[in-house]
């Protein structure tokens, strides 16, 4: 198989959300055929440059985005593709030269704030961002402000995402932002999301961006990337 054919197969596996040989893929017919993970391994073994593989990830996700916009793909389809890229990144990343890894879109730290154990939205955002090329650290649920601050110091993110589903816990977001400002980390952009949150609430607590869903988060990140 030529390099182009292999990369084309890889692209198709990602677009079809076909993670590995045990996964049935988009249309339920792909179980038993090599998936994204096997194809990435094969590409690396055959000497294809990690940078080229990365490029193919980006092109695949672009196609997935278009299919979603056209209504042909739904949220689970897009998520499956993002998960393919996310897991494949774990294989490719150690092989990257320093120059290649710096080509990533940035570091994103994400957490559900203290007192809140809801994680659906957070998990979707984390998976999609990873698939879109961001380096994501997910602190999980019920994370105290102090722990988030500690993680910021260790991970040095460009962006932070805070999630809450309850009116009683969304106020915790303000505490996190206060700590970030007190530490003089104003260069980090803070995103917030979750059912009870709003643009007005984001402004009130000093967050940089309120997102209703993952698509808004991705669009806002793209915009920030263009500006910077």
């Amino acid at each position, binding site marked *: 198989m030529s390099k182009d054919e292999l990369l084309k197969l890889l692209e198709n596996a990602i677009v079809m*959300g076909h993670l590995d040989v045990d996964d*049935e893929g*988009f*249309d*339920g017919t792909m179980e038993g055929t090599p998936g994204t993970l096997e194809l990435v391994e094969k590409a690396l073994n055959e000497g294809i440059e990690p940078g080229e593989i990365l490029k193919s990830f980006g092109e695949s996700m672009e196609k997935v985005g278009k299919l979603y916009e056209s209504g042909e793909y*739904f*949220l*689970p*389809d897009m*998520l*499956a593709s993002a*998960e393919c890229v996310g897991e494949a990144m774990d294989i490719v990343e150690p092989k990257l030269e320093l120059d290649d890894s710096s080509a990533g879109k940035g570091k994103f730290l994400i957490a559900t704030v203290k*007192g809140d*154990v*809801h*994680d*659906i*939205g957070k*998990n*979707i955002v984390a*998976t999609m961002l990873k698939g879109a090329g961001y380096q994501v650290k997910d602190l999980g649920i019920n994370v105290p402000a102090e722990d988030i601050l500690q993680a910021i110091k260790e991970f040095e993110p460009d962006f932070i995402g805070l999630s809450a589903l309850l*009116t*009683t816990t969304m106020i915790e977001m303000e505490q996190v932002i206060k700590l970030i400002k007190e530490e003089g980390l104003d260069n980090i952009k803070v995103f917030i999301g979750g*059912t*009870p949150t709003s643009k007005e609430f984001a402004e009130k607590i000093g967050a940089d961006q309120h997102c*209703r*869903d993952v698509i808004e988060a991705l669009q806002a990140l793209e915009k920030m990337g263009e500006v910077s």
Partner: protein
Amino acid sequence: MIISDEQLIEMLSPAEMELIHRGACRILSQIGVRVTHEDIAGRLLSRGAERKGDRIFISQEMIEEALAQTAKTIRFDAPEPAHGFTLDADENQVKFGPGGQALFIVHPVAGGWDRRAAGTNDLKQILALCDQLPQVDFTTRPVECDVPEDRMDVEKAKIFQQYCTKPMNLANIVKVEYLDKVLEIIGNPAYVSFIVSLVSSPLALDDFSGDKFVALLEKDLPVSISCCPQGGSTAPFSEVGELLQLHAELLFGFVLANVIRPGAKVLYRGIPITSNLYTDGSPRWCQPESIRRVTLAAQLCRYYNLPCCGTAGVSDETEPTAQGLAEKVLSWTYGIASGAQYINSALGMLEQVLSVSYHQYVIDDIALKIIKEKFAEDGTGETSVLAKDAAITALSHFGVAVDREIEDELTARIRHIENALEPYSEEYIEDQIANIKKAVEKTSSTVFMVAARRGLREGYLYQGDRIDAPLDLLDVTERLKSSGIS
């Protein structure tokens, strides 16, 4: 309201329910529940549970012992004694109350509806309104007070004491250290009951809720053990898989309840709804597949002869509409036929559980009366016939000209509610348990979402037409005025 045995709907056969029971028991004995609450873990271990890492495993024997111990009758007293009632798991009686923890009030403005933040005054007004509405048998906290968290419980208790003469479901207690004070303000602990969402799906005990559960049961207060997974995000997208997980999570609650207090007064509250995977994953409370799943959960509860807290009438609409009314009527009708005895969140709710509307409370009160009359007149025992008839009558009552198109849409929705799309076989159940295990091990809800792709294309989520027609709400506005509600 009392319904006949013939009016109880049987969507699962005894053999299918037994398969779900055994599957749920396997989940609890083989996958277990994540418990990091040391006191609760200790209590469970002392009664025969096993522990590996942070997971607690419960045997089928422990589950069945707990189910046998659970109280089968629960008394709900009220400040006005005539409003008190006894819930008996053996009886086909149905009681209705509002509910939710809505954030917004939807109110009419020139040319439509708007919404604003809910607060303390709304809690007072809604309790006063529900006290007057004849179809409201008990009152569940509809909105919270806009006071600091530290004052929430006491403030809420004062308002209930002042504005409510019916059995009071305070739903949540924010800080357990205020429980004694709350009971003192209410004046009689026999007036109050609570709701606790004990387990975060999939299969993880919520520590805060665990504390509340222990405190409430130690006071011998009635508690609805609530579980509201969303198929496709926090539970399998498959109806069979979601029921298995929901059932396991609730059975865990029954075991814990009886460990804390043998013979605990607890109700089974299963709300297995779906996520809207066509859009952003938001919950679908009142769509046909969710109505079906909630009905199945109540039937599973009936299988054990346990007191059942149902949920019906939580519309997905953002404002009072004909579409919302139709959704609600189907949901209530199947809720009643499911055998649920204590139906929560039944009035006033819009936009899933985010909003309530004073107007919607009155609309729902009128529609519930219509449904009760239909059940009383019904001689067929056919829920599908009754549901369609009730929906047509309710829509007509509010000025909707029900044409063939609307009738067809109602028929299609009812068909989706009543038709099984998946097999209830040993093999299929094993597949679903494997999926749940995978999600638990990965501790990520994206497992269920990614696995939902096939079900999405096989039509698990109902896709139909909307019922769009203006509602004539003149009577509703008049009734609100005469109730003194502004």
